[in-house]
């Protein structure tokens, strides 16, 4: 990402604290490195960043607009504010919007207690949802021999789309439809079980932050995700090069 492959070292301020960073790092990476908490859902280390969930919005001095930490590259003497009342309000509101969008019922979810959405909501202190629930009707695709896709729990973070395309190289997943009608699909909107391109590797299931993708045969709260393979894989691939 650095221009001409030359990496510089910057010093910047995060919440008033001086930190150092390499010019190929994002604000989010530097914040995490220095243990500043920034909530994320669409971001996953090892996948490309798309800035879609808008939870990692931060304030950068001199910038009129809020910027997503995951796609903003660091620069010299940058001043970042990771948390204040306004940002906390926006983050909570964004999470509430996610909860209102589809049918997220933790008590009957395979990912209960292993869910990133649930974790973040607890962490940010969400105790009720002020926007009305939309209660859309979505089907469940259980045609795959090992996995289940439940659109009702999907938050459209598109981690599955990216991991399948960027890491597995199969590109089984994509998004169809626009706006509130958007949903993830397998192949050309065919049942997952009939997707010839699917290698059944299960990467999509393991990177899914919620219960939308799960393993068959798991009951409530039984599906833990193992996304640890991703940093391992990307590190190994880098070594090879």
């Amino acid at each position, binding site marked *: 990402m650095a221009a001409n492959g030359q990496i510089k070292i910057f010093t910047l301020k995060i919440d008033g604290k001086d930190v150092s960073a390499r010019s190929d790092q994002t604000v989010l990476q530097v914040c995490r490195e220095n243990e500043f908490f920034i909530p994320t859902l669409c971001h996953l280390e090892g996948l490309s960043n798309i800035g879609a969930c808008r939870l990692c919005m931060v304030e950068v001095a001199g910038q009129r607009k809020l*910027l997503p930490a995951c796609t903003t590259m660091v620069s010299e003497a940058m001043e970042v504010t990771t948390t204040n009342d306004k940002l906390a309000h926006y983050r909570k509101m964004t999470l509430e919007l*996610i909860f209102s969008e589809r049918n997220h019922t933790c008590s009957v979810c395979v990912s209960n207690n292993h869910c990133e959405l649930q974790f973040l909501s607890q962490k940010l202190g969400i105790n009720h949802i002020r926007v009305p629930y939309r209660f859309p009707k979505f089907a469940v695709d259980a045609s795959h021999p090992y996995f289940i896709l439940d659109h009702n729990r999907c938050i459209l973070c598109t981690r599955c789309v990216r991991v399948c395309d960027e890491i597995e190289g199969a590109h089984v997943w994509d998004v169809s439809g626009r706006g509130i009608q*958007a949903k993830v699909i397998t192949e050309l909107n065919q049942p997952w079980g009939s997707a010839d391109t699917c290698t059944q590797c299960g990467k999509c299931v393991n990177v899914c932050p919620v219960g939308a993708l799960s393993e068959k045969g798991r009951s409530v709260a039984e599906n833990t995700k193992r996304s640890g393979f991703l940093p391992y894989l990307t590190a190994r691939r880098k070594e090879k090069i």
Partner: protein
Amino acid sequence: MTLEELQEIKAGEELARSQKKKSIHVCVAAGCMSQNAEAVLNTIEGQLKEKGLAKEIDVKGVGCMGLCAAGPLVSIEPENRMFQEINPANAFLVTDNLEKGKKTTNDLASDSPFFKRQYKIVTENCGVINPERIEEYIAFDGYLGLYTVLHDLDQNEVVQNLIKSGLRGRGGGGYPTGLKWSTVAKAVGSKKYVICNADEGDPGAFMDRSVLESDPHRILEGMAIAAYAIGADEGFIYVRAEYPLAISRLKVAIKQAERKGLLGNNIFGTTFNFTISIRLGAGAFVCGEETALIASIEGGRGTPRPRPPYPAESGLWGKPTLINNVETFANIAPIIRKGADWYASIGTETSKGTKVFALAGQVVNTGLIEVPMGMSLREIIFDIGGGIPGGRKFKAVQTGGPSGGCIPEEFLDIKVDYESLTKLGSIMGSGGMIVMDENSNMVDVARYFMEFCMSESCGKCVPCRVGTAQIYDILTKFAERRATEADLTLLEELCDVVRNTSLCGLGQSSPNPVLSTLKYFKHEYMERIQAEVNQE
């Protein structure tokens, strides 16, 4: 192509024109075309043949004459006598009155304020030349700007000219064009692209379509000049598939320019090469957003990505890319031909030149107009637009499409430029102007635009995808008089979140119609709350 050949074509055209006594112009842009203008053209040709005048009188289809409400329009030149609502059955009115003649029922006063108050730069050839003949464009000094640039100016001089002219992007944002060009010109890389954004999608806006249909070569010339200035050799025109006539005329224009050596290799005998291809949009409004447009040209799903990096640094296929709107490119050739100082003398302090507006809604003269920046809304709507039909009362004017806002009567005297409209909570936008009378309800207006934004959201980021749907649902509650005070608070809160956290311009500006109607017409929202309370 050389300068001599260019002048030869121009002289040839002028000679041909001088051999004809008169010429009859029939508007064949989409508005008039939809009302059978082609049949009018054929009928007039037939009638002239019958009268044995075919040799003396030239008949041609031309681009948009502006007053779409009264189409199909026909004019007799050089005296500029205009006729309105001509159809094959009454086409004889034109051919019978070639010589002065008596007044007919379909006469249209060409000296009315609608025509006289306009200042034409972008649309100077609209309604004058046949858009499917490159020779006519050349006859009106077409491609002279490109020649001047290639032979007399270096790249930096072109950019400096643009900066001096004060031209700002006409797609809506109003970013200084010269600054954008200089950024791309300075970007590192041997491969650069020029893109013309013709994905005009605002409801009620049709400026770009008219320019493309009426004067396509102007865009090609503007793009070629831009390509020279920034060091690009390849260009794309991204035009929505809903504009078939514009697409077919662009294709004709590109072919003609290539045949004449005005596009391709070694243009005007220099080392400058430039090719243009067309890409069709598949009907997504969000593809007018530059990063989504680039994704769409690359063959991906048309969704925006966060900026920076801006396309000027990393655009199409990761290369430095210049994206300008149709109207911006249409301004380039005149600026080069007539000089930056001339252009900078028109308009206001911060906004130079003219702006094309599409007047629509409850206004007498629906159509396309071009006025200098700084004209007041009142002049535009009442003098040029002819006011509200049926003697009804003016209520508000909506500018800037779904990203814009509604401006009430008390601000009608404000001078229109980028800053003044933004201050009022609206935007200049691409130039749609929808006039509303006392019968329109502002909650319904806000709901209409929110429905548009909801269904045109790409679905990538949460605030825009879910937020617009939630706002729409609340507005529906207001429309059905089910809303409460709490809904109003939530509405304002949601607008704030969507505006400040959405990924691209579509989401960030989508609450504008709601916010501006809340600002100026809050009582209409309150009425609907109170009605509910009363029922209980």
